[in-house]
């Protein structure tokens, strides 16, 4: 498959993921999709030939997803605590 076509498809996928994030209701779901976004970004970078950037993106994607999840967790806890009070 030609490289550019693959790039184009991946970009389209990323755009749709972005739209899904904007319109999604569930934050956790959004975070998981974001993980997918980050993965497609990594693929894209690899295709373009930027291996270093892709490598970094892979690690950063992981770390930021973990951060996001922890943050969601903490926010939810907070909310529940408040409700309990």
């Amino acid at each position, binding site marked *: 498959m*030609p490289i*550019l*076509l693959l*790039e*184009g498809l991946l*970009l*389209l996928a*990323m*755009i749709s993921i*972005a*739209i899904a*994030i*904007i319109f999604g209701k569930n*934050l956790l779901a*959004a*975070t998981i999709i*974001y993980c997918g*976004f*980050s993965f497609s*970004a990594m693929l*894209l*970078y690899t295709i*373009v*030939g*930027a*291996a*270093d*950037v892709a490598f*970094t*993106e892979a690690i*950063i994607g992981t*770390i*930021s997803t973990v*951060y*996001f999840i922890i*943050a*969601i967790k*903490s*926010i939810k806890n*907070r*909310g529940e605590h*408040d409700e309990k009070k």
Partner: protein
Amino acid sequence: MTDIIDRLEFFLADRGIYMLALILFAVGIYGMIACGNYMKKIMCMNIMQVSIIFFFLTFGQKEGGTLPIALENIFSAEAYINPVPHALMLTAIVVSLGTTGVGLALLMKIKDIYGTIEEEEITGKGGK
């Protein structure tokens, strides 16, 4: 069939990829402005930054170029993909990680103060 693919490919090479990247950029910015949820805003910020990084990387692409790791036997510049955008974007990517970290910290702080991370509710509580 190959004809269509060829044309499509030419379109993509000429302007299509740029268009898609810029659309991604616009969607990111739009999300940052329009989304009510602060967490989503941060995600959209990342999306925007990814699009810019990709945009830069496309400048460095070369038909038939290999990864910018010097091999023993090839020295001609045409053989390698342009490494400059890669170096720049590594920096940019790290910066975006830093920004995300700060954004998340802020988010949690806002949650502490206002008990919510929805823009509307905060504005309603006098968060102006």
